[in-house]
């Protein structure tokens, strides 16, 4: 990738982050939240959304303290060469791991709901074609494409509107029943729903208008938070707490429950509209991982390496055999993601102690 094809604007960053955050998470998140904190999931999302907004502003201030550097260069400055390199390895492995996991859960969704007899490997190869094509051309085009997320979100909101008359808001009462315990125990599903904003720390040098980056990144988180709250409110008041706990993909079930006038089985249409969104999570991580590897190893022949990278990713994502194992792997991703976030926070604090490479006027 030459550098010109990686540069993105702040508004593209917004779409990019929203598309990574919403996606796979939105399909399973309501059920997982219902299991840990009942019908009060939306309060947890709201609280964690605010916390994460603070975290985003912190990440961007960390990035602003250094002149046009990504997290990979900052770790080297802060912790020395060896420590920094091993941390970078951890970050890349985390990103790669997220790519594989999201690719697998994406193909799993298709496998369960659309094509039961097609092998997941075939599905993986077929669905990765657009991703491969876009990543070949660079981050700029991936980010440009990710603006399509707004279209899918609009479609989803339309579905919410259609089922509005079937909602029973009694299911949400009494508000705040699960209390502080509920909020505490909803940590992992909530963080998992929001993960994706951490890629800012990797792609920050490619943003062209950095002054607006903070505003747009927070805006992205705001959109995700609002959408998740809306989704939780609708799904919870449609199914009720107990039913929600039992279901696996409540958002798709919601689409199936709606009876459209001409189309029987609205869910197929919904999945068709939602597939690009889920794919975008994969695409975002895929692109950022490939970009990081490129940057760390200074690769030149992009064609060969992208093919190798894609092949390894597809093979890795097919290692888990069954769906119960996938949730274990997701847990690992959540833990690694949280450690990455903690690393960013620690780096921010540490940058006040060890001032090497910090912009002088900050």
């Amino acid at each position, binding site marked *: 990738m030459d550098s010109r094809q990686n540069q993105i*604007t702040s*508004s*593209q960053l917004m779409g990019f982050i929203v598309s990574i955050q919403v996606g796979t998470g939105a399909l399973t998140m309501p059920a997982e939240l219902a299991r840990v904190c009942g019908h009060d999931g939306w309060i947890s999302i709201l609280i964690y959304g605010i916390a994460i907004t603070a975290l985003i502003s912190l990440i961007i201030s960390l990035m602003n303290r250094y002149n046009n550097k990504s997290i990979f260069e900052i770790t080297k400055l802060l912790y020395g060469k060896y420590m920094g390199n091993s941390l970078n390895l951890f970050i890349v492995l985390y990103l790669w791991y997220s790519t594989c996991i999201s690719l697998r859960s994406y193909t799993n969704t*298709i496998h369960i709901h*659309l*094509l039961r007899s*097609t092998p997941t490997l075939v*599905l993986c190869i*077929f*669905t990765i*074609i*657009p991703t491969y*094509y*876009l990543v070949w*051309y660079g981050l700029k*085009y991936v980010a*440009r*494409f990710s*603006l*399509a997320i707004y279209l899918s979100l609009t479609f989803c909101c339309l579905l919410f509107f259609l089922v509005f008359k079937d909602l029973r808001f009694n299911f949400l009462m009494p508000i705040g029943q699960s209390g502080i315990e509920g909020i505490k125990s909803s940590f992992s599903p909530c963080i998992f729903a929001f993960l994706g904003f951490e890629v800012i720390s990797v792609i920050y040098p490619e943003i062209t208008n950095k002054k607006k980056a903070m505003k747009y990144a927070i805006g992205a988180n705001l959109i995700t938070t609002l959408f998740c709250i809306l989704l939780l409110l609708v799904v919870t008041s449609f199914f009720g707490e107990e039913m929600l706990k039992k279901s696996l993909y409540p958002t798709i079930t919601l689409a199936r429950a709606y009876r459209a006038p*001409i*189309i*029987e*089985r609205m869910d*197929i*249409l919904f*999945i*068709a509209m939602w*597939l*690009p969104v889920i*794919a975008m999570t994969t695409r975002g991580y895929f692109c950022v991982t490939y970009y990081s590897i490129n940057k760390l190893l200074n690769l030149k022949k992009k064609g060969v390496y992208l093919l190798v990278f894609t092949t390894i990713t597809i093979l890795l994502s097919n290692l888990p055999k069954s769906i119960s194992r996938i949730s274990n792997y997701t847990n690992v991703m959540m833990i690694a993601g949280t450690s990455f976030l903690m690393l960013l926070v620690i780096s921010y604090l540490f940058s006040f102690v060890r001032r090497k490479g910090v912009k002088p006027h900050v």
Partner: protein
Amino acid sequence: MVEDKNLNINLFNDYEKNFSIIDDTLKDCPDIIRRKVILNSGKKGCFFFVQGLCDIDLFQRDFMTPLLNLKKLDNDEVKYLPNKIPVAGLTFPLVIDSLIQDILAGNAVFICDGLTCAISCTLKKYEKRNIKEPEGEKSIRGDHDGFIEDMATNIATIRRKLKTPNLKFKDFNVGAISHQIISVAYLDNLASPSLLQIIADKINQIDTDSLIAIGYLEQIIADHPNSIFPQYLATERPDKVIAGLLEGKFVIMLQETSFVMIAPVTYHAFTQAPEDYTTHWVGATYLRLLRTIATLIALFLPGIYIALLSYHYYMIPLPLLVSLAQSRTKVPFPPVIEAFLVEFMIEMVREASIRLPSFITASISIVGGLVIGQTAIQAGVASDLMVIIIAASAIAGFTMPTYDLGISIRLVKYVVMICASIFGILGVVVPMVTLVAHLLVLESLGEPYFQPIAPFKFGDLKDTYIRAPIRYLKKRPDIAKPKDQERGKKNG
């Protein structure tokens, strides 16, 4: 003599030598007339001109006769010649090579004893067809004139419609054998100089014998030569050209072709017709939306139908499903084979009818449309709903105002059909995403091809899927990066 074929030498003082060099170069060209004369002053001379490119009457009256009657003709006298010979274009080439180029371009050229320069006079007159409406781009309420193969006439047509000194033409010579001229028209106060530089660089890199049609040029200078989507708008309509120029775009004209090319353009330029601007904005918007829906139908309807029939039959409403199942019972093929059979038939009828005379085309449409279509259903080769679906998508494809985009849409449609037969609805979604991804990656002269959708430009949306009232179209679209964004005089 001229052993090394190096003609890039000055004319000699010796008339016989000059004549023999030129005569040798132009031997076996019976269309080039050599008219030897002896002047009044007793000197020997010779006229060269191409029969059929030169106006003989004018040549005799205004060029030959005055020259023959001259009392004196030598190197000093030449500078007074423009006052003595009543013709418009008069030049004095010194180099043999440029002299020969002048002859071949249709000038009448005179060499004479004692002159170290030739006298070349522009007296072009050749057969050209009349201006008439382009067959491929008909218009109901638009203008009915079109470009023709003569570039001078085309330039005059543009100049007639844009009476401004800012209308500039930049000329390039291409073609090692054909020696054609490419002329790039633009409005100096609007067009972006950097884009002009890009075009100039691209054209200067061309190394070819001859550009036979504008399509050659289009393929050579395209940003993404392997894309099936057209990246420059080829047209024969002057009104499209004028509209393009007024938006700060460039018009690339090639000598001896009637098509010109507008650049840079977006995808949406290919879905627009002149009627969109000549009718009321509500009607125009309706036509635009109709075409957009038609595009989607042409692209995805057969694919979706195949996907539903093969994998998601439970999405089809029950009453329809019953009649569908009944009509499919007679058909032995899977839906995709059936679809391709019908599609292939339609494509063949289309391809056959394009180049045949119109009186045969009528009988083809009867054979193809009525006989084959009807009997295919009765014979159980295709189900009737499939014929309807394929025919609907074919008709939807015909709504495209440009021929180039029509081909692209058909090709994408086949890919969607094949994928849908393997992966169901996923096989519709993934090609759709890939298509959008491809449109995002494409660029026309370095400008994003799929704007104003992505990168999103809200201001430019009012002239894409809808057509806002003219009074709101005060800003020029951003695609060509015009120097002046506002239309009209009051805004500077």
